[in-house]
């Protein structure tokens, strides 16, 4: 039996297929403006890799920002629960999870594998992955590299603006003053970390702490957060897929809860269509 977790993030879409014992495959693709609605194709790609068809998948759980309207998912679960489950499976000792996604960041508290509390910021781009994307764009540095580069800094600049837009201008000003990219990036990471930390603090940061989500791929940000937290943090080997992993774990549990007949009926009902994001239909141009 196979179980699939589909995490349609604001920025990156992740699919993970597992069986009883192990993770079989993962696919990670930008959600991108054009691809948002094409989660079905990403699913297809994962299936092709394993030579499977939809009929082989017992249960599909969708999560993430775009989970709401996935016609082929058997269940929708919030990314909060999914990240929690994924991390808990990987690192049972973790009590506090910091998830840094593309358009939001979250603090999640776990106790004995149960979600006990959470906070999130989804109103302001400061302290989200988007903030770092904007800055790396501006500096002409690849997102993958900003973490490493910032670690070279000797004198991090102080970025005083919270707002992404103002921080962008502050960065420009620093550039024209001749500040090095390393120092600017280090300053940017500090500013982000401080913002994220002050939010997560609201639910009390307790050991062990894991950082997950796309932001955890950024070593500069992780280090800056670690500095704030004051003790070492855990970063999973592939932080992007913890949500999808959690979703797949839930999928396998759900399968056990229902009868074969119900399962088959569910599978028949799956519609292999595009995903819609917004309730209100925009007018076609």
């Amino acid at each position, binding site marked *: 039996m196979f179980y699939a977790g589909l995490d349609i993030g604001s920025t990156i879409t992740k699919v993970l297929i597992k069986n009883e014992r192990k993770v079989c495959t993962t696919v990670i693709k930008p959600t991108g403006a054009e691809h948002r609605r094409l989660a079905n194709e990403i699913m297809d790609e994962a299936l092709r890799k394993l030579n499977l068809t939809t009929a082989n998948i017992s249960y599909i759980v969708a999560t993430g920002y775009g989970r709401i309207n996935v016609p082929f998912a058997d269940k929708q679960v919030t990314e909060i629960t999914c990240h929690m489950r994924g991390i808990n499976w990987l690192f049972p000792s973790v009590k506090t999870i910091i998830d840094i996604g593309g*358009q939001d960041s979250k603090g999640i508290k776990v106790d004995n594998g149960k979600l006990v509390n959470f906070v999130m910021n989804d109103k302001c781009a400061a302290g989200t992955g988007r903030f770092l994307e904007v800055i790396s764009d501006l500096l002409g540095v690849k997102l993958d590299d900003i973490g490493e580069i910032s670690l070279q800094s000797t004198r991090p600049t102080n970025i005083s603006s919270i*707002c992404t837009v*103002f921080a962008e201008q502050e960065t420009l000003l620093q550039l024209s003053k001749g500040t090095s990219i390393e120092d600017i990036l280090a300053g940017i990471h500090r500013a982000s970390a401080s913002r994220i930390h002050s939010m997560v603090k609201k639910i009390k940061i307790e050991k062990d702490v894991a950082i997950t989500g796309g932001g955890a791929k950024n070593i500069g940000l992780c280090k800056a957060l670690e500095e704030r937290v004051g003790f070492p943090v855990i970063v999973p080997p592939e932080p992007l897929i913890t949500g999808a992993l959690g979703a797949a774990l839930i999928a396998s549990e759900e399968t056990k809860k229902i009868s074969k007949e119900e399962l088959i009926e569910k599978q028949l009902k799956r519609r292999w269509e595009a995903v819609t994001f917004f309730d209100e239909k925009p007018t076609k141009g």
Partner: protein
Amino acid sequence: MSFIIGLDIGSALSKAVIMQDKTLLSSGISPSEGNFLSAINSVLQKALGKAKLAISDIDLIGACGLGASFIPHSFHKISDISCQSRGTSYLLPTIRTLIEIGNQSSRIIQVTEQGKVADSLVSDKCAAGSGRILQIVAKVLKVDLKDMGQLSLKSTQPVKFTTGCAVFLETEAISRVAEGASRENIIAGLHQALTARIAAMAHRMGLKEDCVITGGGAKDRGLVKIMGEKMGKTLLVPDNPLITGAIGAALIVTEKKG
């Protein structure tokens, strides 16, 4: 008969005017583009050139704006709020409320009959209500800033944005494009989102007529129209809404030092 320069060195645009005896002789505008010094020089040249003057002919300089400290000549710094209100009231003496939509922030200023500030309110620390968004979205849509207004006016069904954040608005605009929403509707939707923010401030301050709108945002006819509708007021726009701050700076420095 002395010559006075007024400067408004904004985060996006640098503006200069030359005045003589309270008459406007010439003006110039240059992008600031993160290099204030060269913007100041360029804008001074423009204004001086048009007035056929040299910097040595100038008796006084008054300046406001974020980048004023970069001015390489001796000058008097005046508060942005006072300059906006004086300059605007010079152009349109009947105004009592001024809405300025600048690049980094928006302001609501209540103006007295003498063109002085009665009260003011500034959007701060968050770009959600500022003119910067117009630029960002224009870039996304590959539209010239100048054409935004016209396009907005043609909208039939403005898109409803789910966020106020300038950065998320950009992302959302990109998605809307991908989903097939028209540029017109996206721009009009943006104008509505921006209006909602500014209207909230305006109501805090209270709108006394006549109301005027200045700053870069005032160049955008679509924005001005939607704002007027939302606030239920006719919003006047000066002929050149960008240079009101610079005019004010010149007028105030004349009074103070002239």
